[in-house]
């Protein structure tokens, strides 16, 4: 039986904001499974894990769980429901770029037997990584990082990110209430195989039901781990990786370094639950999605097969016409607008937010400094905005632009409604691109100089050899002449 140690966070978060949470609406209804949609759509390159290629062809019949996409990182995506592959062609995406990109289309039909992954009697770290790849497990918290890449040999602490600090989002809350056992099982499996010594759960104080369920699951778990449950005050962005590490462990991750460098691995509870299910043989083919917003008649959480078109889910929640409404995938701060409702849900889709358009007219910056107060990294967004919007990217880099976590807390407090985080995202991307170009140029310069040195050295050696030969020849000639001279005498 596992032990649970409950405590409050003793390291307050600097900066941050307290927006209205809008969470109660979507928690009223019971979370159910969405009925299978007629068509499922899977982007080849944007399902998570990098660019991929199709493992099946048009016309193939697939079962639920059949691998259909293999990505560069080793992640394999499986068909969420049985059906026939009808096409591989371009389609809009639920992605900031909007797509279109190549997608695999499956027309679903009646469920047959599903394909499962083999069970094992014992597990090792390597076997766990392999299983995570085969089951298509990546970070379900939004970034979609292939989970197996985080599971190195130098880890000692697992931090379960149950904060879910962004307004409107309740998917993790729902998952922790309904599937807490799987979350704890996944955590234990990871801890046992990676030789972790500490399991910490960070959870916001506005989730009492989830906390209860977690405590129950911990009590019923057959492992002997001590679970430290740290309750953090409700504040945005307490769920940011670095912020939560500070809140729960009191550790500040250095700029440019990652939590795994400090031996800490942070996971979304959904990712751990998916790991537990994959150990039982089930690849990751579904996730909890929050459907909410003022324009949704029946806000709720729903378990969605990956690849379901967004429109289908919105219809299920009572939406029949879209008009001028704004669809946000993700939360109101870190999400992005999507224009095509026929785009499919992918593994990182945690929320569908349908509201009246929210962009207010943008005004000039008056340097009020509210953004600097709100920044959880203690950057100076008003200075960074000045630099990035005028193209002074190097200066912005020196002021710490690379440390921006793009939480958009500064957006939320700006009285001039300036989209600061979008500027910083653009600036960071430009800086990265510039750094890449410089690295390529440096490499080319090095190779050129090495080649020049080699050619010079070869020419010198050749010259030296020629000189030696000439000396040898003239010596021989002298000897021959001398011999001839002696002969002719």
């Amino acid at each position, binding site marked *: 039986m596992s032990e649970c140690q409950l405590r409050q966070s003793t390291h307050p978060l600097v900066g941050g904001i307290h927006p209205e949470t809008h969470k109660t609406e979507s928690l009223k209804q019971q979370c159910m499974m969405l009925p299978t949609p007629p068509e499922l759509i899977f982007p080849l390159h944007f399902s998570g894990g990098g660019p991929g290629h199709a493992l099946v062809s048009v016309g193939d019949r697939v079962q639920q769980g059949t691998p259909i996409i293999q990505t560069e990182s080793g992640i394999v995506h499986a068909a969420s429901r049985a059906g026939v592959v009808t096409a591989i062609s371009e389609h809009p995406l639920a992605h900031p770029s909007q797509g279109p990109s190549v997608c695999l289309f499956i027309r679903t039909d009646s469920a047959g037997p599903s394909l499962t992954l083999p069970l094992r009697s014992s597990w090792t770290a390597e076997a766990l990584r392999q299983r995570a790849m085969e089951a298509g497990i990546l970070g379900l918290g939004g970034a979609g990082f292939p989970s197996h890449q985080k599971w190195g040999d130098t880890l000692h602490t697992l931090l379960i990110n149950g904060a879910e600090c962004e307004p409107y989002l309740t998917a993790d809350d729902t998952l922790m209430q309904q599937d807490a056992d799987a979350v704890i099982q996944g955590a234990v499996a990871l801890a046992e195989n990676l030789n972790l010594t500490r399991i910490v759960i960070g959870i916001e104080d506005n989730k009492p039901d989830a906390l209860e369920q977690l405590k129950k699951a911990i009590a019923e778990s057959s492992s002997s781990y001590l679970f430290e449950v740290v309750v953090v005050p409700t504040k945005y962005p307490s769920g940011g990786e670095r912020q939560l590490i500070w809140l729960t462990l009191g550790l500040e991750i*250095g*700029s440019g370094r990652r939590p795994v460098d400090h031996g800490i691995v942070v996971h979304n509870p959904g990712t751990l639950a998916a790991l537990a299910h994959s150990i039982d043989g089930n690849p990751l083919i579904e996730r909890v999605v929050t459907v909410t917003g003022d324009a949704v008649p029946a806000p709720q959480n729903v378990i969605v097969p990956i690849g379901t078109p967004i429109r289908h889910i919105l219809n299920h929640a009572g939406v029949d016409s879209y008009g001028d409404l704004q669809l946000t995938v993700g939360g109101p701060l870190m999400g992005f607008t999507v224009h095509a409702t026929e785009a499919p849900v992918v593994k990182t889709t945690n929320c569908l937010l349908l509201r009246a358009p929210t962009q207010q007219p943008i005004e000039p910056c*008056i340097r009020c400094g509210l953004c600097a107060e709100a920044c959880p990294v203690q950057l100076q967004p*008003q200075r960074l905005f000045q630099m990035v919007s005028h193209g002074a990217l190097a*200066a912005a880099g*020196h*002021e710490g632009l690379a440390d921006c976590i793009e939480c958009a807390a500064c957006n939320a407090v700006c*009285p001039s409604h300036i989209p600061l985080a*979008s500027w910083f995202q653009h600036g960071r991307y430009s800086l990265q691109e510039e750094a890449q170009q410089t690295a390529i140029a440096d490499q080319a310069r090095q190779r050129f100089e090495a080649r020049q040195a080699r050619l010079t050295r070869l020419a010198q050696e050749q010259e030296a050899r020629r000189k030696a030969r000439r000396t040898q020849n003239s010596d021989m000639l002298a000897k021959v002449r001398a011999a001839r001279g002696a002969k002719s005498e």
Partner: protein
Amino acid sequence: MIQLPSNRSTSGVMAQVLLALVPGMLVATWVFGPGVLLNVLMASLTAWGSEALCLRLRKRPVIVRLTDHSALLTGWLLALSLPPASPWWLISLAVATAIVLGKHLYGGLGQNPLNPAMLAYCLVLISAPVSMTTLWIDPLATPGITSAWMAFLGTAPDAATGATALSLYRNDFTALTAIEIASHPLFREASLGLIAGVEWVALAYLVGGLWLLFRGVMTWHAPVGLLLGLFVVAAFFAIDPDSGTPVWVHMTAGATVFAAFFIVTDPVSGATSPRGRLLFGVGVALLTYLIRTFGHYPDAIAFAVLLMNFAAPMIDHYTRPRIVGRDAAIKGSGGTS
């Protein structure tokens, strides 16, 4: 990134500041006469007019920018800083200078390195020194509407004008002791025991400023920096009560309280970091004291503010907080990670 729709806006902030000026404006009218309101009216009209003209010349949308109230605020600040018996052309010139020279030539809202109101005040002070020194109303002889109107038109500003407390201390009181000074009507007639009339105006501005602090429109750093800074410096040098201007005169007279809550808190031209704002306020206090005591002009807030405006970028640079995850704020180029 999407926003959460917020009810905060730039025009809302400006409107609240305008509201906070109203108590001070009303009390100033009561103490100094209807000239104050006439000045405010003239300033408002000039502000709107010059702002609209500049926006049209710069090909910007006029109505949107006018309704952000920033021009109106500049106008009101000037109208309440300039002498109550000023003629209409003085007010108009000052406000037009502030809007055109102090704001739009630098690129409009959010771009001015100097406080536009203080820039115009200095310009008028240096260009029309006689008007700026002789048109202050004596609070004990508040004029009626007729003489205020005459003063507004610029014809024969009459005996209702008098010296201010600061100019008295500078020019007339140098040979007097504190007790002799106390018998001057300006101090003897003071109901709060400070300076007649002026003390009420300062109190009204204080109320307005505290309300703005309470509403979260501004932070406390700049006002506290100025008030505390001036208090400490003046108190230090006023140990001998017979020499120099006493602390309470420094704090009550002139534009001290007004500047503390409405001038040094201008976000565009001041410092932006909290520590920076504190230093900004203290800097203004020090310079004000120096210029008032050793300089040519009785009141020095405007010059002090302009000088500190020049220093604001450097203050910002050196008061950046430590970035989370680094050892220090990045100072200049080549910061280490």
